[in-house]
């Protein structure tokens, strides 16, 4: 083959390479878009809890705020924080949180006066179907607080919970995943200090 003659194999290789590069860029962009919008989308369980309330209190709901930080973001935060000298309690709190999400919604024009009983009943049904139990429910006048935990998989190191607060036509839903071990250690440390202090006071030291 003379030097001026084009290589018959190189053209399809180049076109394939271009295809792969374009594909990778598009995939990267899609991941970036999903990743960025993911910060503003609630997880499926928290979303279900929110939707149950929105449907139990018909009217014009307006999203005020919605934010979600997942496993990657919290891991990144822990990595960055490890480079700084933080207070032990702050360090423990950072180590404990493995994901959190919060959504705040306003009911601007209720079709009818929403009753906490109806909200709670609907939320209970929806969450039970998804494998969550309500462990706390408090209703006081027109305020409502409910906390849900999954049937299974609750341990000191893996704790998931969902929380709902309805107060003056405002709904707040929160979801959190945490490892409570670091916080338990902090609590134990503080209890030890309190007990030691009480013991010293009793002994007149």
């Amino acid at each position, binding site marked *: 083959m003379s030097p001026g003659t084009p290589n018959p194999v190189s053209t399809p290789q180049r076109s394939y390479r271009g295809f792969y590069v374009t594909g990778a860029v598009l995939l990267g962009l899609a991941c970036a878009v999903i990743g960025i919008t993911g910060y503003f989308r609630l997880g499926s369980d928290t979303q279900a809890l929110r939707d149950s309330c929105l449907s139990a209190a018909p009217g014009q709901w307006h999203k005020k705020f919605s934010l979600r930080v997942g496993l990657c973001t919290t891991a990144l935060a822990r990595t960055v924080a490890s480079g700084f000298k933080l207070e032990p309690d702050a360090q423990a709190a950072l180590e404990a949180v493995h994901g959190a999400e919060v959504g705040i919604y306003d009911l601007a024009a209720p079709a009818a006066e929403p009753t906490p009983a109806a909200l709670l009943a609907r939320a209970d049904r929806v969450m039970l179907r998804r494998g969550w139990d*309500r462990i706390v*429910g*408090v*209703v*006081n006048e*027109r305020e409502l607080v409910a906390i849900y935990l999954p049937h299974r998989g*609750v*341990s*000191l190191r893996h704790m998931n919970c969902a929380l709902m607060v309805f107060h003056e036509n405002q709904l707040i839903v929160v979801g959190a995943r945490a490892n409570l071990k670091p916080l*338990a250690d902090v609590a134990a440390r503080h209890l030890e200090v309190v007990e030691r202090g009480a013991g010293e006071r009793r002994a007149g030291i």
Partner: protein
Amino acid sequence: MPFAVGTALLSLALTFNGRAGGLPAGQVDFGTFTPPSGGAQFVEVNLTSNLISLAAKLVEKQEPDVAQLLNGLQMVSVHVIGLTDENRDDIKDRMEKTRKELLTKGWDRIVAARQEGKDVGIYLKTQNKDTVQGLVVTVLDGNEHAVFINIVGDIKPEKLALLGERLHIDPLKNLPKPDEK
């Protein structure tokens, strides 16, 4: 061979079905309570064994006796219902019905007190003299609140007061210890 496998599967299914259908000896089904209309107070707390054992782990170093007590519990269920004109009669009827049912099902009433509009009943389900399988506390606080509490688990009678203290169940705090009876 297929017959043997079929029989084994059937017996396994029946075993699981039997377990799922029956409540533990100390558990009482109060039924479902709905928050009263008109803004009256309503509080429900339902703690299952995994959450209770989690709490036990939190305190096991500082208070091993409390951790041991908590580890014996399977369930804690608390219902506080504000009474209104709409639900008062229904809730009072349910409380009376629950109390009668407990007595007919072999529970022991250890406290029955009525004073200044308060009506308190404490019931125990015991396996033998040494073990309490379940505890029910019912309180009618005048015409304001009704309280239903059920604690299920393996509880030593001498630990009931400690349980009341730790779970903030006032009627249990003043229970006499077994040797004081």
